[in-house]
């Protein structure tokens, strides 16, 4: 029988799922209160534009082509009055009220919406301007719509995405551009090189700022200072720049090769963990009505459901500055705007773009009048940073407790860039400045072209307030020592190998026969399709007759641990879990770090408590109930150790997503969890699933190793992608930069490159039943003993599907009395074989055998051992 209390709890969370579980203890709410402004029942208001009439009413345009007029009401849950002014527009991702007349930026037109008969409904839509290209691509959004004192509108056009979606395109004029529209409706293109430029804003000096979204050629979400004629880094838009077009009269900007055009820098790079889909930004001109952050920008963030704060200063005459966390748990914020009363109205949109719930509607942030203890502003100094605090500090922070991380990015076609070349900088000293609100943090080693993310230790103000957000990220394009030298943070690097499919790099551990990759601890595990037992919801039914992909199921608890034979370290992983009613189960990363999965929304996705760790509930709930599959997408960071073996970073969940809901971000385990199956702490271990109570099942486990620094420079290129010069081949051709073998008995061997010990790496894609044998140290193609075989019917074929590129590395090292070959697929060691005797010396050879099909090889490199 269902426990009614638990069921009510579930209902509560199912209906209130929009509200973060941590809301009750939300420390930010003491300073900035979030007030919902619910719309009419049943209406889904996906906000795209926001502005205010002179009497304080709000005009809201939506993705659904509506314009609502909202009369805000006072109170905690403001029963605002919503009135539908217009509908039937083609999206409205920008809105500006000019002399109390609504102007909406549709996909294809900047429109003036008139109510000529005065009945409160728009009856005439005038075209102000439509002079830009729209090919019809789904992603060709038009964003806006700030207006300067002269009456010019500013807007920006999204590039198009088609197949493959990570290559942006600009096939019609001014995609990827920022445009000015004069009051007469004339378009003036200003600058190019933007990608998904969701937000535009002017500051007090009428300098134009733009927030873009991370993606190809955009390593993380930036805030640009838009200056006429500049190029901001996304190459697609160059097609419409006159000088580029003159140099390339026929061509189009390459998807993968960096263009030879000078790039303007971002004033601020927002860390990926803070923003993955940046909305717009707005300047605080509230003269203190919104608290102590006057003249700073507030930035909407959709994916994580936040509002961020950005503060700029000029160094060497150009803007750069810092971004801070400001307010969490606001839902999928796409638009922010200040009301005449100085409240920050938030417009949300989520659908299809993967934001945090609530994914629609309006809310507002009100300052409670209590000044939070925050880092109000950061200024670059000659030898570090000057921090201005909102309140006097009680005491200086401990120098040793200040963490200063320096990093930059790669500028490339891949979708975003990890934080690259990261290192922790030493803080020399920390001291008060003129007052106890001024902190000088001396860092001798600051360089241009870097982002500094500084985290202060716990601090309190003189009045006893705890530092609310102890962290900022400051983008250094120029230093005070050399203000004339600009170094971009996003570094030009050699283009990575083109990618064909989104899920390249994953290993699939549950395709077909699971035996090679799974070790059930006992006979209590079965591998078959599974579903909730209709008669007894506390148990699961397993059987051949059921539909669905097979899953590992344990029907009696506690189960033995189910372990992978492969070990993982830092990974992105994906799996699905189903629980019976009342069940409890655990995933143990590296066999040590537990993620608890219980039939209870608050405990589904918790980090369980252990000795010295009180545990961590998920930030939000995404649980949909017993008998349902729950799809997880997780980024796990293995603990890191210094050379002496001391732990310098704990194991953590960088991100846990259940369906589209973010359960955790940067959740750390201080040590191993209770019931760990692996001893001590280490950088790798098996993926383990265990049932603690009732019955549970897991399926679809796949992961992608998060690679360490690349050492590819030390490799010799074996194939130039064009000719077979230096190879002995039979039945092999070159197509699109790849070596291609069709059918059995094709072979290829390096003639010039020879090795005995060392490493060979290449990308391979197979289809059909063809098998590819790889031999190292082959002297004759016909007689080289294969080190490993690849193809559908091989071990590798279980982990990597057909028609998907896979990176292969084969390492040959000397052992006592012989040698050992190790096969790595997508950076994952998969198999090792030991041999006795002396390793042969010779070329690298490939040979096909078996049935029909083809094999493609790309990017072949080799490195003989020294």
């Amino acid at each position, binding site marked *: 029988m269902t426990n009614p209390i638990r069921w009510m709890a579930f209902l509560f969370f199912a209906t209130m799922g929009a509200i973060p579980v941590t809301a009750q203890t939300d420390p930010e709410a003491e300073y900035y209160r979030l007030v919902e402004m619910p*719309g*009419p*029942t*049943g*209406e*889904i208001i*996906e906000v795209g534009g926001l502005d205010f*009439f002179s*009497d304080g009413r709000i005009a809201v345009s939506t*993705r*659904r*082509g509506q314009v609502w*007029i909202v*009369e805000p*009401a006072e109170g905690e849950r403001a*029963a605002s*009055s*919503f*009135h*539908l*002014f217009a*509908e*039937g*527009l*083609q*999206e409205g991702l920008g809105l500006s009220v000019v*002399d*109390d*007349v*609504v102007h909406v930026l*549709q*996909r*294809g*037109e900047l429109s003036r919406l*008139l*109510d*000529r*008969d*005065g*009945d*409160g*409904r*728009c*009856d*005439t*839509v*005038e*075209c102000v301007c*439509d002079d830009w290209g*729209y*090919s*019809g*691509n*789904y*992603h*060709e*959004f038009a964003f806006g719509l700030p207006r300067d004192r002269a009456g010019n509108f500013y807007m920006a056009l999204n590039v198009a995405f088609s197949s493959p979606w990570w290559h942006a395109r600009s096939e019609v004029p001014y995609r990827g551009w920022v445009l000015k529209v004069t009051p007469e409706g004339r378009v003036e293109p200003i600058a190019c090189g933007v990608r998904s430029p969701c937000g535009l804003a002017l500051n007090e000096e009428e300098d134009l700022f733009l927030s873009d979204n991370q993606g190809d050629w955009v390593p993380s979400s930036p805030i640009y200072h838009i200056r006429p004629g500049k190029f901001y880094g996304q190459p697609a838009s160059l097609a419409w720049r006159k000088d580029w077009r003159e140099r390339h009269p026929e061509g189009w900007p390459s998807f993968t090769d960096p263009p030879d055009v000078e790039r303007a820098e971002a004033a601020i790079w927002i860390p990926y963990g803070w923003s993955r889909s940046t909305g717009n930004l707005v300047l605080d001109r509230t003269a203190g009505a919104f608290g102590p952050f006057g003249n700073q920008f507030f930035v909407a963030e959709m994916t994580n459901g936040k509002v961020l704060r950005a503060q700029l200063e000029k160094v060497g005459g150009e803007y750069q500055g810092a971004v801070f966390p400001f307010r969490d748990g606001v839902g999928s914020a796409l638009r922010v705007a200040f009301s005449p009363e100085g409240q920050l109205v938030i417009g949300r949109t989520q*659908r*299809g*773009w993967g934001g945090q719930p609530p994914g629609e509607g309006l809310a507002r942030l009100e300052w409670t009048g209590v000044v939070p203890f925050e880092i109000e502003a950061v200024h670059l100094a000659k030898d570090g940073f000057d921090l201005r605090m909102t309140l006097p500090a009680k005491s200086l922070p401990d120098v040793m407790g200040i963490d200063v991380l320096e990093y930059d990015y790669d500028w490339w076609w891949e979708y975003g860039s990890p934080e690259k070349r990261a290192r922790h900088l030493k803080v020399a000293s920390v001291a008060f400045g003129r007052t106890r609100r001024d902190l000088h943090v001396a860092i001798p080693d600051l360089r241009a072209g870097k982002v500094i993310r500084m985290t202060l230790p716990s601090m309190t103000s003189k009045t006893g307030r705890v530092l609310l957000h102890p962290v900022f990220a400051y983008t250094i394009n120029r230093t005070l020592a050399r203000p004339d030298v600009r170094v971009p943070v996003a570094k030009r690097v050699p283009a990575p190998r083109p990618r064909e499919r989104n899920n390249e790099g994953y290993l699939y551990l549950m395709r077909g026969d699971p035996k090679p990759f799974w070790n059930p601890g006992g006979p209590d595990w079965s591998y078959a399709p599974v579903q909730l037992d209709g008669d007894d919801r506390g148990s699961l039914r397993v059987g051949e007759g059921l539909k669905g992909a097979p899953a590992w199921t344990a029907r009696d608890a506690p189960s033995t641990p189910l372990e992978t034979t492969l070990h993982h370290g830092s990974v992105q992983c994906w799996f699905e879990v189903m629980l019976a009613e009342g069940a409890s189960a655990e995933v143990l990363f590296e066999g040590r770090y537990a993620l608890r999965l219980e039939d209870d929304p608050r405990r589904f996705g918790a980090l369980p408590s252990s000795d010295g760790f009180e545990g961590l509930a998920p930030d939000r709930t995404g649980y949909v109930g017993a008998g349902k599959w729950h799809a997880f997408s997780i980024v796990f960071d293995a603990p890191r150790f210094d050379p002496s073996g001391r732990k310098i970073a704990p194991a953590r969940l960088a991100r846990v997503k259940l369906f589209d809901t973010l359960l955790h971000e940067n959740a750390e385990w201080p040590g191993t969890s209770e019931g760990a199956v692996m001893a001590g702490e280490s950088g790798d271990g098996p993926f383990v699933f265990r049932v603690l109570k009732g019955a549970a099942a897991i399926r679809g486990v796949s992961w992608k190793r998060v690679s360490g620094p690349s050492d590819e420079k030390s490799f010799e290129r074996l194939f130039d992608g064009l000719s077979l010069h230096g190879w002995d081949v039979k039945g092999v051709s070159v197509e699109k930069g790849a070596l291609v073998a069709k059918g059995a008995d094709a072979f290829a061997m390096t003639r010039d490159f020879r090795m005995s010990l060392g490493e060979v790496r290449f990308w391979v894609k197979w289809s059909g039943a063809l098998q590819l044998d790889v031999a190292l140290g082959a002297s004759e193609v016909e007689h080289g003993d294969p080190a490993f075989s690849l193809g559908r019917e091989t071990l590798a074929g279980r982990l990597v599907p057909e028609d998907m590129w896979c990176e292969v590395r084969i390492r040959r090292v000397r052992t006592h009395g012989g040698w050992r070959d190790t096969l790595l697929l997508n950076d994952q060691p998969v198999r090792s074989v030991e041999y006795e005797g002396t390793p042969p010396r010779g070329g690298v050879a490939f040979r096909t055998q078996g049935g029909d099909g083809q094999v493609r090889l790309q990017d072949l490199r080799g490195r003989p051992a020294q």
Partner: protein
Amino acid sequence: MKARRIVLLTAAVVLSSTACGKGSDGSLLPTDDSVTAAASPSKPPSKAKTPPPDGKALFAQHCAGCHGIKGDGKGETPTERPPRDFAKGGFAFGNSREALFRTVSKGMPGRSDMQPFENRLSPPERWAVVDYVLTLVPQRSQDWMAGAEMRVDDEARCVWGKIPSLKKGWPEIPRGLVVGLPNGITLVWGREPAYRQAVLRGAFLKRSDWGGRGGQALELRGEVILARKPRTASPFLADGEPLRSRWRSASTLGGDRAVLRYELLDEVGPVASVTDEVAPDQDGWRRTLTVERAPKTSGDLVFTLAGPQDSGVALEREALVFSWQGRPTLRLSVENGRIKKRMERFVLPVPSGAPSRIAWRVQRLRKRSDRVEETR
């Protein structure tokens, strides 16, 4: 000044000048560009201390006479137009609680017999009526596609969006405008050049273009009865050269009709402005083009309507008759899957200094009511 000659190619072959045609009554032409700000919606009621008014009883007393006791629009009081059936959902002045309150308070002056009740019912009473009326409409789900289906009731509607491919092999039109008339006729315009792309009969459209990641085409719900091949030359010609067009506005000020305005341009600049009015006409439609020459253009202007061999008209499914001054002038029908037609060429000289009007009606040749989805 060189003489200009504008050739207008459309499916219709009937025309009249202002002098001889009935055309439009002219009242729909734009009057004045003054802007009226949106009226402020009324505030919701404050918490009443007295017992709440009985919305059902108030509805029976004040509303059921016209709207029917069930809200089905079948009340006993005769009205010029039958009131809406609430069970079908949709309200002319918005469907939110606040919008309904406004309609109850202010009525629909000049639009229908719906009277203002602000002097007859107190605000709490009006809110009670609104809440009762909301129980009569279909309850909207939280489904993401809720509200996607758009209907046309008493008033013409304009919807901007991507026009789907209307025939296999035809492209989508990224920037389109769809006008729904209350009699179930839907007309579709492309933007460049601005001309009638298609006519459909039946239900209006589903607004699902915002679904997923956005940017899909509108789902037109009616059956295509007349379509013009995309990417054929502009129907507007000057000196034999096609004219570009520039969209100016779309308006539904006239209740059951819509007025679109666009400019025609040659390489020098604007040649003429067109006011393109569509209105329901029994089971067909009436269309009036008012063409006004741009200032500083002179010489003889000529409009020519030509046949489908030039303009790429494809007739779908229905037989239509185009008539002018009440006389059938052109018949289009489909026989054995091929269009049978008779086409003529008309030339209209436009006198200098005055707008010129071209108007035509299109009616079905024979009724095939099984294909019609009546909206009222």
